[in-house]
């Protein structure tokens, strides 16, 4: 579990060329269960949508085993990386619940409060 907000100079890893900070904390079981529930919903992934005119800039990355999920709230998209497969990009069907989860995990980050407030 990594957070993209932190100072870029401390970056030490990347997923598919996106700079990612190494895990800053371990998620508790409840956080893991919530995010798994959100990400396991098929309706969360909308593949038929018109491209958005903002670059994909992930807010955070979540990795379960070898599958990585990168979420960008600016574009409203999520990218899924699986070894040996072409990465897929989807529009987030339930953008709000993932943003709320972000707010829960990163309580000090104003950005999540802002986007949740705007929903």
């Amino acid at each position, binding site marked *: 579990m990594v957070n*993209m*907000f932190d100072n870029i100079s401390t970056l030490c890893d990347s997923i598919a060329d996106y700079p990612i900070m190494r895990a800053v904390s371990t998620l508790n079981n409840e956080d893991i269960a919530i995010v798994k529930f959100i990400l396991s919903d098929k309706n969360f992934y*909308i593949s038929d*949508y*018109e*491209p*958005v*005119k*903002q*670059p*994909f*800039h992930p*807010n955070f990355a979540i990795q379960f085993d070898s599958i990585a999920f990168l979420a*960008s*709230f*600016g*574009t*409203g998209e999520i990218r899924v990386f699986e070894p040996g497969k072409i990465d897929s990009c989807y*529009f987030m*069907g339930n*953008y709000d619940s993932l943003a709320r989860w972000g707010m829960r995990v990163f309580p000090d980050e104003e*950005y999540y409060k*802002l*986007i949740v407030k*705007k929903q």
Partner: protein
Amino acid sequence: MKRYLISIILLCGLAFAVPAQTFHAIIFANTKNNDIGTSVEVDFQRMSLEFTTMAKSIGYNLKKYYFYGAPSNFNRNNLVSCLRNLDCTPKDIVFFFYSGHGGRAINETSDFPEMILAVNHSTFNDLYSLSDVYKQIRKKGPRLAIVMGDLCNSEIEGYYKDSSLGGSKSATIINKGTCDVYRNLFLNVKGGFIAASSEPNQSSSCYRFQGEDGKIYEGGGYLTFSFLGFLQDYVDKGEDVSWSQLFDDAIAWTKYKTQNRKSGAQIPIYKDDLSMATPEPVQPVSTPPQEPIQSNDDDTNYRDKVAYSLSMVCNENIDRLERIRNIESAKHYFAGSAIVQVVGCDGHTIVNTSNANRYLNYLSMATSMDQIVVLDMKQENGNKISYIKVHELHYQ
């Protein structure tokens, strides 16, 4: 001697006929972006075609500043130097158009977004505010400044603005009615107008539509597509329209078409700083082709040279015999088997396909044709053109 005298008199006559005013057309288009490049390419081609029609219709010289394609061309430094070096007289018109990625700082005070001037891998240093472009162009003192951006206006995570950051399917038919619509838009007003494709905190999408053949086509950005669609509709009807009415139509259409979008409807915005101006003298509808003014971009210069050469074959102000003679110089640009594709205003409807020789003969015999705009081309080894996509401007 007599012949030389006639030539000098003719040249003087031509020099006086060419108006001193310039239409500065500036385009920054991220045509090579991995996600939206195909859609931006549509915007780029359609706007560059529309700029030719606009300048022609109001009798202005067209000067192009086109920045697209490779990172060496589409970047922030080129925007800074383009704006710094922009030299215009109080009679000139400046139209700035941007299509690409965009966003806004979390602490942004302007309603208008910032452009992201990097092809694929961007940093905060690649951002440049659309409203700063507008302010800088207005400072140069042209009679009219139009700034239009088709880009997202949603917040970029982690980006707080630093105060140091700077910041129809057919051929085009030009007739008196067409020119009146353009003259009303460009010559009867002065001041400035700035528009962006979405409200603060909103994203902008690329428009895709199903053609009559059932295929899905890229329409470009929603704002650009609707702006050009409504403009061409008013022009076709010969009905005068104001900038604000034109954008109100485009806003209503964009809002309607995006109402079911997952992230909510996209609503373009604008700010109107225009006032009425004394109408400019009326120029003749059809004039001899304008010799291209040097642009910043080599490809654009080459396309303009080819377009000029083709226009010298089709323009009815040129003597018929001269037009036939001009075929030979136009032929030098083409490979023996070159294919010419003629497309409509929408940039994708194919009106005619021919080989170059046959097309040049057709141009030399054409009536009521004014000029050719080159939209795309492919060159063989040795730089000869093997494929060319053109649009024809006719007049009535």
